[in-house]
C-alpha cells in the first residue's frame, strides 16, 4: 500500500510547528500504524531528514505511551484501540493521512508528535492512592469483595493514562481520567474511606493544571481506547459533592 503522510513537525516546545507531507510506498496491510512510521523514519534518515519523533513503547495497547491524533481522531479511525494497535488495513491505498500530536494546553509539545503528560502524574500525586502503608496488611480474603463490584472497579482501573480523552474533549478536560481512578478506588472497601477527599483533591489539581471542565459531550468515552464509561464521571461527581457538603 502507498500513502501520503502529512505530519506535524515541531523542533521543540518553543519552536513554531508546521505540517510536512511525506510519500511512502510498499507498506504491508498487516503492518501497524507505528510500523509504517518506523519505515518512514528509516527512509527519512537515509535521505538525511530528521526522523519524526513519537512516543511509543509496549506496542500492545497497554502502556499508554503512543498518542497520535490521526485524521482528526485520537488514536485514529479504528474504535477503542491505541495507535499501536491500529493497522494499515484500516486506510485506503493511496490515502493522505494527517498525523498530529495531542492538542491540549496541559500537554505541551516536546518535539513533533511527543507531548509532555506529566500533568497526569501530578493529578495522581494529589490523591490517586490509598494513603496508608500497605506492607503489613491483613490476609487478602479477610475483606470480601463481590464479583461484580471487583469487575466494575476493574473496568475503571483499565485506564492506561494515554490522554486520548483530553485530546478529544473540546474543553481539554481530564474528567474521564480522574473519574477512572476515583471510581475504581471508591468501589472497593479499601479505597472507600478516602473517596470523597480523593475526589476533591484530584479535581482541584486538575483545575490548577489548566485542564478544562466537563460539559458532558461524552466524546471521551467514544475515543477512549479502553472504552471507559462516562458513568464513572457520575460517580466522581457524587464523591465530589459529598466532599463539598462535608466541608
Amino acid at each position, binding site marked *: 500500500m502507498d500513502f501520503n503522510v502529512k505530519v506535524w513537525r515541531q523542533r*521543540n516546545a518553543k519552536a513554531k510547528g508546521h505540517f510536512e507531507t511525506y510519500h511512502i510506498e510498499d507498506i504491508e496491510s498487516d503492518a501497524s500504524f507505528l510500523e509504517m512510521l518506523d519505515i518512514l523514519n528509516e527512509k527519512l534518515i537515509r535521505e538525511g531528514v530528521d526522523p519524526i519523533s513519537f512516543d511509543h513503547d509496549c506496542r500492545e495497547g497497554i502502556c499508554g505511551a503512543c498518542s497520535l491524533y490521526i485524521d482528526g481522531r485520537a488514536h485514529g479511525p479504528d474504535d477503542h484501540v491505541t495507535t499501536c494497535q491500529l493497522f494499515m488495513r484500516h486506510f485506503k491505498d493511496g490515502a493522505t493521512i494527517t498525523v498530529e500530536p495531542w492538542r491540549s494546553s496541559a500537554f505541551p509539545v516536546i518535539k513533533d508528535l511527543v507531548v509532555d503528560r506529566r500533568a497526569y502524574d501530578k493529578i*495522581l500525586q494529589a490523591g490517586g492512592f490509598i494513603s496508608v502503608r500497605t506492607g503489613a496488611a491483613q490476609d487478602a480474603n479477610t475483606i470480601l469483595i463481590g464479583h461484580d463490584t471487583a469487575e466494575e472497579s476493574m473496568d475503571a482501573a483499565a485506564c492506561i493514562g494515554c490522554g486520548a480523552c483530553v485530546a478529544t474533549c473540546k474543553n481539554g478536560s481530564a474528567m474521564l481520567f480522574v473519574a477512572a481512578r476515583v471510581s475504581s478506588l471508591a468501589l472497593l472497601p*479499601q479505597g472507600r474511606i478516602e473517596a470523597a477527599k480523593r475526589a476533591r483533591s484530584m479535581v482541584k489539581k486538575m483545575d490548577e493544571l489548566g485542564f478544562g471542565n466537563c460539559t458532558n459531550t461524552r466524546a471521551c468515552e467514544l475515543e477512549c481506547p479502553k472504552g471507559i464509561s462516562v458513568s464513572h464521571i457520575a460517580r466522581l461527581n457524587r464523591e465530589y459533592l459529598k466532599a463539598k457538603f462535608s466541608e
Partner: protein
Amino acid sequence: MADKLISKIPDGPLSEKWTKRKSEIHLVSPNNKRKLEIIVVGTGLGGASAAASLGELGYNVKVFCISDSPRRAHSIAAQGGINAAKNYQNDNDSIYRLFYDTIKGGDYRAREANVYRLAEVSAAIIDQCVAQGIPFAREYGGYLANRSFGGVQVSRTFYARGQTGQQLLLGAYASLNKEIAAGTVKSYPRHEMLDLVIINGEAKGIIARNLVTGQIERFGAHAVVIATGGYGNTYFLSTNAMNSNGSAAMQCWRKGAYFANPCFAQIHPTCIPVHGDQQCKLTLMSESLRNDGRIWVPKKLEDVEKLRKHEIKASQIPEEDRDYYLERRYPAFGNLVPRDVASRAAKERCDAGFGVNETGKAVFLDFSEAINRLGHQKVAERYGNLFEMYEKITASSPWEEPMMIYPAIHYTMGGIWVDYDLQTTIPGLYAIGEANFSDHGGNRLGASALMQGLADGYFVLPVTIGDYLSKKFAEPKTDINAPEFAIAEKAVQARIDRLFSIKGKETVDSIHKELGHIMWEYVGMARDEEGLKTAIKKIKELRERFYKDVRVPGSQFEFNQELEKALRLEDFFDIGELMAYDALNRKESCGGHFRVESQTEEGEAKRDDKNFMYVAAWEYKGEGVEPELHKEDLKYEFIEVKTRNYKD
C-alpha cells in the same frame, strides 16, 4: 577474584533463613534515614515498589525512568497473573510447593535460599496489593479467584483479567505517587542512566541524560539500585517493549559488577507469529490461555499444505487428524508444561514441516473444546480481552478459528549477579527484579516475574539495603563534583560525540535487526558450538560496521530518539557477545538453554549436573575481549535434584 562471589546465604534450616537474616540486619533510625540518599533506576514492578517502600521507610529516594511517566514501564504489559502460596483453593499448595515448583521449573540452576524466600513472601504480596485497592478477579462469594499456569499442578495464580501486570504496576505506582507527594521520593521521568559512578570501590551515583533537553546530569547517593529489567531486545524482535534495554546492567558490568547466566533467555511459546520483515515487535498472548486452549498441528502433511494455501480452515480438520503434541508427549502436564518445553516442542513440529501458516512457523492454540465445555460467557470473562487483542492484530477471531502462535524471546533469567541481600559484587550497588539473576535459574515459570519484582521491591531490598546503609549514615552526601563524576561524565560525552561523528549511511534499527538475526539464528532456541563461535565472530564484525556506517541524525541537545537507540545498541552488542560466550561455556542443555550436543535420544534436553551445577558469573575484561568466568557452585541441601520430567 572468585572470593567476590560470596552468596551470604544464612545458616540454618531453609524455612528459617530469611527470618534469621532479617533479625541480624541493623536498623537505621528515622532521623538517620532522612540523611541517606538512594537512587533507584527503573520504575517497573521492582523499581516502583522498591522506591515506594524505601520512601515509606523515610529514606531520601531519587527514582529514574526513560518513559514520560513511571507507569509506562514494561511490567505493565504482563498479562496472566502473579503466583502466591496462599492455598486458597485448598489444593495442597504450600510455600514449600511453590518453592519446589520454581526450583524444578528453573531446572535446578537457582539458589535454594533465594527461591524459598521468594515463595515465603509471596502471600504477603497479595495482601499488600489488595490493600492498595487492586481489583483482582473475585469469585461470586467475594473471595479472590485463582487460575493455573504452566509447570505446576495447583491453582495459585491471582489475576486481574488479562491485565495483571498493569494493575500491579498501577498499585506500585500509586504507592510511589504517595511518596512523591510526601516528598520522600523525587521522580525523574525521561532520564536515562548512562553510567555508574564508583568512588573508593563503592557505588555512589549515576550519570544520566535528560532525554528532553539532552543535558548530561550527575546524581549522587549512598546506594544505587538497578531495576531496569531484562535484555530480551538484544534479539531485536521480542515481546519486550520497544524501549526496554539492558544498558544500565551493561554499564554496571563494565564497571566491575559480575553478570550471571546471561545465556538463560526465555522463549515464550504463545506469541503471535511474525507477519513480515517490516515488523519490529512481537506480541505475546498470555500463557494463561494454555489453561483452556489446546495446542495442535495437523497429523497429515497434506492438511498442512491445504492450510497454507487457504484451501481449508483449521476448524474443518477432523479431531482424529489433529496432533495435540503436548498432550501426546507430556501426558501428566499436557498443555501446561513449562515454557521452554512448550517452545521447543513447537519448534520440533515446525521443523518437521507441520507449521500451519505460510512461513511454516506457527501452531494452533484452539479454544473450541473450552467454549463447548464452559460456554461463551465464561471463556469471555477469562480471556475476552486477549481474544479481542488477537483479533485486532490478526483480523481472525479465536471464537471461530484457533489462534496461531509461535515462540518468541520474552524474558531473561540471567542478569547482574547478586548475593542473598541482592547486592552486586560492587558494594552499595543492588539489582532487583528481572535485572538480577537470582530466582529463576534456567527457566522462569509463568506468573513468577511479577512475584519476583514485587518480592524484591516490597519485601527484600528495603530490609537488606539497611544492612549496608546502617554503616553509612555518618557519611556526608555524595559530592557530585568529585573527580570520579567528572571522569564518568567525560566518558559518556565521548561516547555520544563518537556516535555523532560517524555520519555513515546505515540506520540504528537496520543494524540492530542484523544483530537480532545473528542472535536468533545462533543463540536462539537451539545452540551448538560452531554456531556460537560464529555468533561471536559475526557480532564483532557487526560492531565494527556499526562504528563505521551508522548514522545518528540530529544533535545531542534535543529530544533525539535515534541517539537513545544508538547508545542502547552499543550495549546490546556487549550483551549479545556475553550471551554467546556463556552459551558456549555451558555445554549442557538446561532450562531455556538448549545445546544440540546435549540431548537424549528422544530429543529432550540433557542436563549435566556433574559439570555445570553452578552460576556462571562473568567479569568484564574490555570491549570485544573474552570475559572471565567465575563460578558460584549451587548446593542443594534441602531438595533432591532430579531430572525434570513432565511426562508422568
